[in-house]
């Protein structure tokens, strides 16, 4: 888990004029272009139905764009078929809105799932055994502070704990990109902050690349302004010139369109009434 990645920057996810049209007159995604580079944290903000989750599903190949080009890890995946996608997806970690855990499997089996079922972990077509991957599973669960829940089932855990198991499952295979779909939705503020603290810890420990879909401006603010201190095992405020600030970028979606992309300070400075709803700027606070 704590393996740092190579530092050579590379484009992990690239959208070029990507649109998606369902049966409705308004497109679900309207000519969206952005790039996420290695080591970057991208906060995707927007109201419900603005197209945030659609971006995640297109990045995972769960939805096909109507037009435009999508590249994952410098590979054009726009016209990949389902079989080609399985290999791409095995390099992407994902946390679904409700955790997306398999309710008939134990927590241990859930976290071990990517290691047991992805083709890249098989040798001569044979799956590893649960015993052989147990140390990795235990380490991933220890990371989210749920090391004693191996034999439990998802239904026995609280909402926040299920998200943490989802994070352990997503990160156990050491993905190149981690997509978090509303990791704090429906959680109380204390649990929500615990989840964001885990995301920050994961960023520092693995130097991971992440896209976080959220409607809470506090999530982005925490990601952009705090770092994990492994010695003290706590979060601390970043220095003003920390490179992490630069590597945390924000984008705001509105009705399928990308209406803002930039740093937190640029987001705070925006006077647009919709964009400022997702920022910490004084105008928003006053309203």
């Amino acid at each position, binding site marked *: 888990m704590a393996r740092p990645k190579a530092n050579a920057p590379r484009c992990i996810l690239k959208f070029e004029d990507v649109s998606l049209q369902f049966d409705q007159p308004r497109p679900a995604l309207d000519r969206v272009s952005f790039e996420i580079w290695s080591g970057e944290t991208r906060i995707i903000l927007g109201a419900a139905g603005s197209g945030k989750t659609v971006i995640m599903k297109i990045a995972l190949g769960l939805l096909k764009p109507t037009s435009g080009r999508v590249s994952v890890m410098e590979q054009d995946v726009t016209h990949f078929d389902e079989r080609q996608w399985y290999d791409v*997806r095995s390099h992407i970690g994902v946390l679904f*809105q409700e955790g997306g855990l398999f309710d008939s499997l134990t927590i241990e089996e859930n976290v071990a799932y990517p290691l047991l079922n992805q083709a890249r972990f098989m040798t001569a*077509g044979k799956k590893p055994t649960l015993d052989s991957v147990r140390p990795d599973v235990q380490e991933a669960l220890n990371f989210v502070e749920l090391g004693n829940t191996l034999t439990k089932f998802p239904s026995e855990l609280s909402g926040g704990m299920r998200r943490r198991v989802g994070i352990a499952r997503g990160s156990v295979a050491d993905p190149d990109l981690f997509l978090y779909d509303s990791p704090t939705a429906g959680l109380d503020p204390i649990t929500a902050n615990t989840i964001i603290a885990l995301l920050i810890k994961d960023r520092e420990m693995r130097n991971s690349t992440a896209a976080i879909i959220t409607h809470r401006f506090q999530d982005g603010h925490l990601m952009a302004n705090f770092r994990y201190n492994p010695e003290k095992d706590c979060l601390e405020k970043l220095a003003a010139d920390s490179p992490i600030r630069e590597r945390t970028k924000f984008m705001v979606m509105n009705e399928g369109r990308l209406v803002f992309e930039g740093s937190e300070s640029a987001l705070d400075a925006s006077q647009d009434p919709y964009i400022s709803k997702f920022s910490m700027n004084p105008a928003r606070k006053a309203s």
Partner: protein
Amino acid sequence: MLDWLKSPFLTFQEFVLLAGRATVNAVRRPFYGQDLFLQMDTIGVGSLPITVLIGFFSGVIMALQMSRALSQYGATGQVGQITAITLVREMGPVLTALLIAGRNASGIASELGSMKVSEQIDAMRALGTDPVKKLVTPRLLAMCVTLPLLTIIADFVGIVGGYMVAVPLLRLTTGSQYWNNAWRSLEYNDIAQGLIKPLLFAFIIALVGCLYGMRTTGGTQGVGRATTQAVVVASVWIFIVTALVTRIFVNL
């Protein structure tokens, strides 16, 4: 009008595509052996008691009904022949398949439907595994192995049921005559159609259950709807296919 016609054709197209993918996946790595044995246990071993019960009583009813008809012609000695032929050719395969459709097509559809509405199928795809390979192929293979075996058991137990009525209960014939007639009356043609039918029914039950489960929408209500549709569609197709196969074998 066109939309009304389009829906069943699209469903059939999805069925054919799913059948193709599930079959091709059976010979493509990685193999999920543990899932296959789990499904064989659920479908095969789990359905054994009810199959034995239904098989036995279908033989009993067949012999009871035939006893009256045959006694009118003084041919009560033929009860073993009629019971065996009817069971092996038609009653055994169709009744077992309907039973398994009710028990397992519904089970498969509701299990996969619940997974679909709770994003577990999407999670499976997102985690780099093919849901068709992981969920559909083991169920299809398990059904193809266990349904013919269950049918053979139902046929045999049914003939035993017929024997219980014909020999100890109604004394229509002797035990040796009953078994002799039953055994001699069966031809390769009967055995062949009695085994081909359950294999085709296995495809229908497993794939209809999986198809309706995997395209479930609309939350828990949708799961209930998918389960009902799976059982109804599988049962209707069992009758259509048995009619077609019987038509082919009658001409052979």
